[in-house]
């Protein structure tokens, strides 16, 4: 318990930030028209590709002869990159439909 209290008190601002981020996540989406559900899902999915940053860090910190880590890292990078690039690109294609006429 004490540990938890300590963690809480020490990371107070981070916790504020997390809670506010959650509220913001809710708030931003809560009034979206149904037609945008799919593109929005797709856009959010692309953002979740931010996990690729972890993969970059993993490789950068790996020793150059740690081939296991490096290979895992590269796989992670490939997967993450597909998610990021594909995600944004596919969202963009979906949203092309929304171009205002004239």
């Amino acid at each position: 318990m004490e540990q938890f209290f300590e963690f809480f008190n020490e990371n107070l601002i981070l916790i504020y930030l997390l809670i506010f981020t959650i509220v913001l996540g809710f708030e931003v989406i809560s009034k979206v028209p149904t037609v945008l559900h799919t593109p929005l899902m797709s856009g959010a999915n692309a953002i979740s590709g931010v996990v690729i940053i972890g993969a970059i860090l993993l490789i950068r910190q790996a020793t150059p002869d740690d081939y296991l880590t490096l290979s895992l890292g590269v796989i992670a990078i490939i997967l993450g990159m597909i998610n990021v690039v594909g995600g944004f690109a596919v969202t963009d294609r979906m949203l092309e439909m929304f171009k205002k006429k004239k």
Partner: protein
Amino acid sequence: MGFSFIINLSYLVGAFSFVWGLRLLSSPDSARRGNIFAGIGMGVAIVATMIMPLVDAANNYAWILGGMAIGGIIGLISARRVQMTSMPQMVSIFNGLGGACAVVLAMAELNNYYAGINEMSLGAVGIALFTLFIGGIAFTGSLLAFAKLEGLVWDSTVTLPKHNIINMILLVVTLTLGIYLFLNDSLTLALVFMALSLVYGFSFVAPIGGADMPVVISLLNSFTGLSAAAAGLIYGNNLMLVGGILVGASGTILTVLMCNAMNRSLFNVLIGGFGGSAAAGKSLDGDQVAKSVNINDAAIQLFYSQSVIIVPGYGLAVAQAQKVCKEVDDLLEANGVDVKYAIHPVAGRMPGHMNVLLAEADVPYPKLLDLEEANAALKSTDVVVVVGANDVVNPSAEDDPASPIYGMPVLKVWDAKTIIVLKRSMRPGYAGIQNPLFFHEKNKMLFGDAKDSLSKLASEIKTL
């Protein structure tokens, strides 16, 4: 100091771009900008991560750039190639890969930890296990969702008897193992834990109906977000944390919204079972299936078309929907859509029935096309909306010599690009005969009372 400021600032910009991008994404006018905005933020963040000073880092840039190039190209090409109709599948598979990425990361970190290469606090181990679990579900769940949407698997074949109970047991086993791993180090068990998570993801999605897949994808998307956030905690990376949490939160709320739009509860969807039948349509001769369309897709189709022809029938009169119909017309016209009415000579139950109705709704005479004009115009029409008409748009009159109405001139709505039929059921009209139009590949049914459907369409169009 200054350099790390720039890195920090880049991350801040990245985080802000995610928030603002999502915000812009939630309105049709700005959605595209929002996506680009978030994409740029992501780019900035990736570059910052590449160049940020790391003590004692080997960097291994070649590996990184190579991986990025491969992934980038695959992503780009598949995004370009995918058919418009297969978008949800694509999103699903992308999402699965994101989850897989998180799984790989967590596994690599755990491996390094078990191998004694890295140090990790107890909390960090717990977080890595969480990442493994939730990322694993997102991974296999998304793959199965993809397969279901692509029609690669039948709903029934992937459901075991008492599937929900099996799922429950699987979940408990996996979680117990997770807790054990939290307290005891074991690479083998960690791999088993990962495998179980992957199986659970698969099994979790299995019983859910094909039509509910978008909801599931959205939920899995928020899982991926959470796994990214958890990975962010491992790496002490604010941007991953914030971005992941943001996706987790907005994905969750989006999932709920999608369920609401379908008039179902999330629980209902996840328990699955009857979900599959919701949009399956009714069959003719036992094998043909009429596709149905939901209000928002219909609205968007109408709104973004160039030309619309409305075919009123007796159902319009029964529903007394003439005024709402005119409202939809007005809304579309206001957006530059060209709207006309095709009046079949025998539509309704008395000569001029449709004229009376449309005059009541103040539809100007020049908007009314008679049979010949309409059949000429239909060829270049984007969307035909058949409002409570049936016999007058029956293709049997053209191509089925056995039909009692064979030879009657009808409105050839199938010449248009897409057809939406508004009626309450699959029941026949006055002539009492089946209408193959409903099973036409271009056609979608919008079931419900015409007045109701039209006023829902109107409010939906207003939000665009």
